[in-house]
C-alpha cells in the first residue's frame, strides 16, 4: 500500500485526535453512573468511522493499530493493549462490513461497531481473567452500546456535514 503525503498526514492527525479523545473521555466518569469495568463512551470511534469513509479500510486499520499501541505505551499498561486491540478490531471488522451496505447510515454502522467493540472487550476480559464472569456484563454493555453508538454516529454525521464542502470528502 502506498500512501500519498496528504493521506499520511491525515492518518497522523487522525491518530493524534483518536488518542486525545481517549484521554478526554477518561475524564468523563461514566463508570460512576454504570459501574462496569471498562465502560466508556467510545469517542475515539468517531475517528474510526471518519477514517473508514474518507480514507478507506486499510488506512483506518493503520490508524487503529497506531492508536492502540501508542495508547498502551502512554498508559504504561500492556494488559490494556489486549483489551483495546480486541475491542478495536472487532469494531473495525463489523464496521467495514456494515459500511459496505448501501442502506445503512453512519448511525447503523456506528452502533454495530460499538456493540462489536464491547463483545471484543468482554472476550479479552474472559481471556485475561480466565473466567467467564465478565460475560455477566455483556447484556448491559450491549444495551449501553445502543446509546453510545448512536451518540458517536451523531457526532460523525455532524462531522461529515461540516466537512462536506471540503475536498477531503471528495477523496
Amino acid at each position, binding site marked *: *500500500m502506498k500512501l500519498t503525503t496528504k493521506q499520511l498526514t491525515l492518518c497522523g492527525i487522525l491518530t493524534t485526535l483518536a488518542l486525545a479523545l481517549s484521554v478526554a473521555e477518561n475524564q468523563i466518569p461514566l*463508570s*460512576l453512573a*454504570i*459501574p*462496569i*469495568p*471498562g465502560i466508556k463512551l467510545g469517542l475515539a470511534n468517531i475517528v474510526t468511522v471518519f477514517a473508514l*469513509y*474518507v*480514507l*478507506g*479500510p*486499510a*488506512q483506518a486499520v493503520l490508524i487503529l493499530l497506531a492508536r492502540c499501541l501508542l495508547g498502551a505505551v502512554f498508559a504504561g499498561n500492556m*494488559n490494556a493493549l489486549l483489551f483495546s486491540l480486541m475491542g478495536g478490531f472487532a469494531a473495525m471488522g463489523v464496521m467495514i462490513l*456494515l*459500511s459496505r*451496505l448501501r*442502506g*445503512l*447510515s*453512519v*448511525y*447503523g*454502522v456506528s*452502533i*454495530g461497531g460499538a*456493540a462489536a467493540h464491547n463483545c471484543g472487550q468482554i472476550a479479552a*476480559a474472559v481471556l*485475561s*481473567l*480466565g*473466567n467467564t*464472569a*465478565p*460475560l*455477566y*456484563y*455483556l*447484556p*448491559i454493555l*450491549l*444495551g449501553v*452500546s*445502543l446509546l453510545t*453508538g448512536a451518540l458517536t*454516529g451523531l457526532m460523525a*454525521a455532524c462531522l*461529515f*456535514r461540516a466537512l*462536506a464542502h471540503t475536498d477531503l*470528502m*471528495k*477523496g
Partner: protein
Amino acid sequence: MTLRSWRKVGTPMNTSPKLRPGLWDALVVLVVAALAVSCGWTVWDGQDRGTELTAVVSVDGAETERLPLKEAAGTERTIHAGGYTLRLRLTETEIWVESADCPTQDCVHTGHISRGGQSIVCLPARVIIQLEGGERVDTGVDAVIG
C-alpha cells in the same frame, strides 16, 4: 481477497456516507437489542439455584476462596492480588468491596451484590468475586446495575 479488491481497499470511497438514520439502521438496533436480551437470558438465568449463597473469590483465573455467606456473615476479608489490596465485607445476604487501592475503583462502585450469578470484577488486581447459589429470583436489569 483477490489482488484487485486489495487495490480497491485504501482508495477513498467516492460515495459519501448516508447521514440520516433509516429503516436499515433500525434493523441494526433491533439486532443488537435482541442480542442483549438473548445474551441476558442465557447468562443471567443459567445459574444453579437452591443451594446456599456462596461467594467464590478468584485471583488470576484460579479459585482461591469459597465463602458461604451464612458462615462468613459479619466478617471482613482482605485480598492481596496484583499489587493491590481489596477489603471485602460480608453479611448473611450481601457481599461488597468496602475499599480498594486500585486506580479504577470499579469494584467499589459496583456496590453490594446479593444474588447468584452476580459478580464484582477488579481488572487491575485481576480479582473476581462471584456469587453462586441462592434462591431463584427474577433478575431485572434495574437490579443488576445497582
